[in-house]
């Protein structure tokens, strides 16, 4: 019976190709836009380090002066000072990992004369960065604590840079030069998919850094801190001096320019938190932390939920796309109704000759599933081009200061979204067909058999 119903479904699809095509187009258009937005939403909602994101915390301590304005949300709270960073790193707690990072920049060069020098950015961090954030290595490894403490000139580079500078060969053991400093490559990262470059809190970009340098080397050699940071009025001159690439005065300042992370198991969270508070209290006794003691330990999930929730464009667009899909489905209901009701005489005859209602339902459901499947395929093609279009808009709106690699993951269809689109297409088409099929099945057979 299934093969017969399938055969009838195919025949019926071919019977009125214009109506079939219209139904498929209605579903595909709605689904295409819906999938475009859902993909953007899904991709930007992806949480890095999903297996432990609830245990990875950003630490923020409010060290600002008394007159500073209140912050509207903890996500807006300042980063950590360098001296607090070093102090906290001394407080070891079993099972707890701590890392920190900031961004530097310089002119990078390699021995190969065919490669032009590049102006580049690099993440400055400690050895725990690699164990906490688990970037995949293609060759070599990150540096260890001993290397870090000795201030050795080592560097970890990305696959992208390894391909660009060394033609993709294993470059571990070779050197690069940043400004006048020669650094030995000890590790090459594989492609590292981060939906959000969370570790430096620049959530809008997906691509991690291309270079990772030990903080000890960066500090010893005066590598500058890139981008702005919070410095209080009393430290304004320090901030200005920093912009002349002088980090020395910054080390003991109250300027918060380090992003500090801790990986804390659930059972140790309370102890760790208390330890931070105790530290703040002891520093307060020394005249620091003049305001009411406020500190935040915010895990990755909560941070991303905040970032995602604030994406008004995506949220509004999501609602519009869902409404548009609903309108397209209503359209499909109308077309299917017209298509099916033209068949009421044939269905009445089949019912008179012994077809049960469920057989008629099955025949039409198969037809609808095929329509949904084709609508799904076309919808995915439309969403592919939709995502390309949205990415172009994103690049255009940034005046092309953002590179394709930085935002590509937000506009990429993956198997999850393709599967989601197929299922949505088929399920929604089935839902859209319930009323037309119900109407068709409830036409009294006798009413159609007498007429010519």
């Amino acid at each position: 019976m299934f093969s017969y119903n399938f055969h009838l479904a195919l025949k019926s699809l071919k019977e009125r190709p214009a109506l079939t095509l219209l139904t498929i187009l209605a579903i595909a258009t709605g689904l295409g836009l819906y999938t475009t937005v859902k993909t953007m939403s899904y991709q930007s909602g992806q949480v890095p380090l999903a297996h432990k994101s609830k245990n990875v915390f950003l630490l923020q301590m409010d060290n600002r002066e008394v007159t500073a304005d209140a912050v509207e949300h903890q996500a807006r709270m300042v980063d950590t000072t360098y001296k607090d960073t070093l102090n906290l790193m001394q407080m070891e707690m079993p099972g707890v990992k701590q890392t920190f990072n900031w961004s530097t920049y310089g002119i990078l060069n390699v021995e190969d004369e065919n490669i032009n020098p590049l102006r580049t950015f690099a993440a400055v961090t400690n050895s725990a960065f690699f164990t906490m954030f688990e970037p995949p290595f293609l060759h070599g490894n990150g540096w260890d604590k001993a290397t870090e403490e000795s201030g050795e000139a080592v560097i970890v580079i990305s696959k992208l840079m390894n391909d660009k500078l060394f033609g993709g060969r294993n470059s571990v053991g070779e050197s690069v030069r940043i400004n006048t400093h020669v650094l030995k490559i000890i590790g090459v990262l594989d492609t590292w998919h981060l939906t959000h470059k969370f570790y430096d809190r620049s959530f809008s970009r997906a691509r991690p850094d291309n270079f990772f340098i030990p903080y000890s080397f960066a500090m010893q050699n005066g590598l500058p801190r890139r981008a702005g940071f919070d410095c209080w009025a009393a430290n304004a001159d320090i901030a200005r001096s920093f912009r002349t690439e002088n980090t020395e005065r910054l080390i003991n300042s109250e300027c918060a320019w380090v992003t500090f992370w801790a990986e804390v198991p659930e059972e140790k969270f309370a102890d760790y938190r208390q330890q931070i508070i105790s530290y703040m209290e002891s520093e307060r006794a020394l005249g620091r932390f003049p305001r009411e003691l406020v500190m935040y330990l915010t895990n990755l999930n909560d941070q991303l939920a905040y970032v995602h929730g604030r994406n008004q464009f995506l949220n509004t667009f999501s609602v519009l796309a869902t409404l548009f899909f609903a309108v397209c489905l209503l359209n499909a209901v109308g077309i299917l109704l017209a298509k099916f009701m033209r068949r009421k005489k044939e269905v009445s005859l089949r019912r008179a000759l012994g077809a049960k209602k469920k057989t008629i339902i099955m025949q039409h459901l198969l037809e609808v599933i095929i329509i949904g499947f084709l609508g799904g395929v076309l919808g995915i093609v439309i969403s592919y081009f939709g995502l390309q279009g949205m990415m172009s808009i994103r690049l255009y709106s940034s005046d092309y200061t953002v590179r394709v690699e930085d935002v590509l993951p937000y506009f990429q269809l993956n198997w999850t979204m393709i599967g989601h689109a197929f299922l949505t297409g088929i399920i929604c088409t089935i839902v859209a067909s319930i009323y037309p099929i119900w109407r068709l099945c409830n036409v009294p057979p006798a009413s159609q058999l007498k007429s010519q």
Partner: protein
Amino acid sequence: MLRMENVSKIYRTDLVETHALRKVDLHIKSGEFVSVTGPSGSGKTTFLNLAGALETFEEGDYFLDGHNVKGLSDDKLSEIRNQKIGFIFQSFNLLPDLPLFDNVDVPLRYRGMSAKERKERIEHALETVGLASRMQHLPTQLSGGQQQRVAIARAIAGDPLFLLADEPTGNLDSLMAQQVMELLEDINSKGTTIIMVTHDDQLARRAHRNIQIFDGQVSDIEKSVADDVIRSA
């Protein structure tokens, strides 16, 4: 084989109640050829729809092959139509885009028969109506009389208990009507019960028995007196 006891059918709207059939008592035995006559609007089609389990009724009982069909589910009624009843319509009701073979195949498909058995039955049914050589033709390639013969082949292919023919010659010229009638008589002579609604007195007279319906009420007339009644009508 077919017995109706006090069967009534009422069509209701918000304002009007129409008694299409009133307290019908009827018994049709196996192998009979029964004609049903009556003026337009008298209830013939309603009677045929009830007999064919295409409609339900409010009052009375309808026993088909010993089983009361009253209150049966829609699926069960479909099964009864498929297995026990063959339908022949005035307008043939063939599916225009299917070859004759596939048209005759429709009720057999819903019975879940094997491909081999279906093929044998279809070939035999089309042979019976004299169209075996044209089984791959489309209905539109046939004359009206031939189309009605295909409809008859479809009705008899499942070997039903009885055939319900609703003015089977109504759309045919007299020569074709004659051929179709002869075919029905031939089928009846082999033991298939036929209930035929007709406006044609001459055809009605050829049945064993005539049932007249006036204003929803059935008069069951035996063959001996049927001819006189029809003649004087």
